[in-house]
């Protein structure tokens, strides 16, 4: 009898919790996408979840710097439509579950007016779904792996010149533009098992194999692989002319260190990510070992794209260093803000529906050049090929933006 009473009491409590939850959820969902309208004279609060800890923390912090810099720059100029921008950035610890919690809290609890994206495809996929559910525009400075676009979300915009898997295309275009005698005959591929990394290398492999460049080695390694030496030892045993690294950051450093230790320098070396980080790459692999390594970038020091000079000056003033040390993840994040400003200027409005509608038509100028998107948020431009030359990362291809001639074959390691 006592048990039955307890059971009834427990059910009553659970029922009560359920009713409260439904009411709270109802309030929350009704306040989400429309919050910008209800608070149109206060500050423009923008929420973003960024990886400040964990695997993506190097790039995540660069994204945060970009967001913060844009906010302070736009505020110094009077804000967006007269509203001061207030960034609310929370850490997702590079976790796919935390990123969902963060955006749900930002939208339902903090009632932010707009949301900006996190770092990496892994986190952008679940985060963009949350934004879609509540009708928020989702501008992501990183995370353009193929699975993101397969979602076909109309609120999603990848703020880079091209989808991530196509970022290596410019390298393939350059290699295949070389005289046949100069082109590599064999290639090896070491790829991180990550939706941002392996697809880039695989896209390159398809192009090179179609062009007759023989694959002598291909290996995909799990993200938790601490020691890449055995993988690189097996790769070196095949003596490839060209090494393609489908990399993030830490594994990009580990690949180079292993190759230096194994005393093998290929004629061509391309890494999808990591090598395009001017701040951390020379420090982690040794500045002397960077020479000749190639990567792709959408922004570079000295770029003449809209706002680039002002961005570079503001970045150095805020964070120190030199133009060479500006991470392009910061430029991408800053460009997200530029787009919001541009939409506000063009339409006189800054609500989510207007942003989504506006960005789906026309071309928009940013630090990264002209951007436009298809219905699923996929951009339609191309990246720039960058190469380490004399300890600096310089654009070398296409010729329209090149500031130096591509160096090949890659010089030997500095040790």
């Amino acid at each position, binding site marked *: 009898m006592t048990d039955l009473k307890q059971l009834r009491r427990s059910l009553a409590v659970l029922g009560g919790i359920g009713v409260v939850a439904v009411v709270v959820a109802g309030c929350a969902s009704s306040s989400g996408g429309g919050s910008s309208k209800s608070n149109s004279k206060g500050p423009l609060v923008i929420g973003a979840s960024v990886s*400040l*800890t*964990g695997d993506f*923390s*190097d790039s995540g*912090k660069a994204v945060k710097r970009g967001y913060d810099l844009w906010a302070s720059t736009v505020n110094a100029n009077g804000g967006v439509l007269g509203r001061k921008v207030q960034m609310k950035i929370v850490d997702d610890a590079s976790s796919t579950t935390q990123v969902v919690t963060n955006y749900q809290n930002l939208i339902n609890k903090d009632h932010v007016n707009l949301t900006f994206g996190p770092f990496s495809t892994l986190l952008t996929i679940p985060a963009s779904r949350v934004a879609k559910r509540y009708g928020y525009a989702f501008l992501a400075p990183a995370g353009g792996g193929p699975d993101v676009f397969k979602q076909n979300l109309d609120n999603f915009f990848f703020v880079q010149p091209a989808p991530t898997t196509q970022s290596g295309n410019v390298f393939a275009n350059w290699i295949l533009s070389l005289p046949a005698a100069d082109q590599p005959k064999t290639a090896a591929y070491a790829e991180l*098992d990550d939706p941002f990394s392996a697809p880039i290398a695989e896209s390159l492999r398809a192009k090179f194999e179609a062009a007759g460049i023989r694959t002598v080695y291909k*290996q*995909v*390694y*799990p993200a*938790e*692989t*601490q*020691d*890449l*030496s*055995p*993988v690189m*030892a*097996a790769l070196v*045993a095949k003596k490839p002319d060209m090494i393609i690294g489908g990399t993030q*950051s*830490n594994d990009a*450093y*580990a690949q180079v*260190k292993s190759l*230096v*230790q*194994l*005393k093998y320098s290929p004629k061509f070396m391309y890494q999808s990510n990591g090598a395009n980080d001017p701040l*951390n790459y020379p*420090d*982690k692999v*040794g500045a002397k*070992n960077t020479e000749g390594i190639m990567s792709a970038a959408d922004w570079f020091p000295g770029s003449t794209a809209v706002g680039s000079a002002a961005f570079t000056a503001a970045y150095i003033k805020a964070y120190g260093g030199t133009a060479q040390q500006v991470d392009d993840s910061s430029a991408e994040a800053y460009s997200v803000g530029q787009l919001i400003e541009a939409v506000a200027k063009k339409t006189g409005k800054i609500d989510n529906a207007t942003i989504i509608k506006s960005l789906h038509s026309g071309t928009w100028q940013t630090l990264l050049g002209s951007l436009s998107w298809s219905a699923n948020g996929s951009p339609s431009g191309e990246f720039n090929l960058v190469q380490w030359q004399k300890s600096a990362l310089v654009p070398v291809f296409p010729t329209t933006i090149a500031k130096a001639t591509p160096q090949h074959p890659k010089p030997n*390691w500095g*040790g």
Partner: protein
Amino acid sequence: MHAFIQGLILGLLTAGVYALMASGQTLIFGIMNVINLAQGAMVILSAYISYQLFKSFGIDPFLAIPIVTVGMFVIGVAVQLLFLRPLKREDRAELSLLVTFAIALLIEGIMSITWKTNYRSINTSYANSSWTVFGYQITLVRLWACVLSLVALGLLYVLLNKTRFGRAVRATVQNPESARLLGVESDRVAALGFGLGSATAAAAGSVYGLLYAFYPGSHYDLISLLLSIVVLGGLGSIGGAMVGAVVVSTSSAIVASTISPAWSAMTFFVILIVVLVVRPRGLFGSTARGAI
């Protein structure tokens, strides 16, 4: 075949570092019946201290080992006195899991605040040097790390077998009650033993920082590796930890270089399961206490 032999060389050289880390783990278990989940965090803390000494004062990580060792010994003794000694003897084995995990989280938090969460690595002038022997590369840092580990393990052997302290440790390991009746101060031995286990993390950490990039959360990967090594070798056996380290390291490296790194962890766990099915106490584990 070239990849196989190069993988074997890498595995054998790395095994020394793993053995050094795991010896502290197994020593602490042998003396105190405590599974120290903070051992990985102590290795990473040592790597950070070594990194800081190199960055701020230019002290070579190998030369920094004595300084870091003393520091980690003191930290180890303090941890034992503050967090483990207050536990009731009969509950110590179970509660120590929670307590040492909490210590690991505490150390991780301190490292995150002090050094932030970026990846760090110690890049000395010789970090990428290697020797070519019959067409195979012997990485200098791994070779020195292996030699250093063997020396450290040799010193540990001498300490445990040829000194009065070592006899007290072994007596405590074999029969704590009898040791106490014969005048061994078991609490003191436990504190010093925990300090000694932490001190092995110091040497291992300095070398770890030379080999791999690390961040405060790196200890999670390490602790699962260390526990696997000591369980394979037999909890409480330093010799077992060495053999376990060789098995883990070489099997991982060979499978990664000849098949796929995706299979290397699984291959090792298959070996671990087979060994535990055939010999549940591990390779060198003993039914009675006192395998050290």
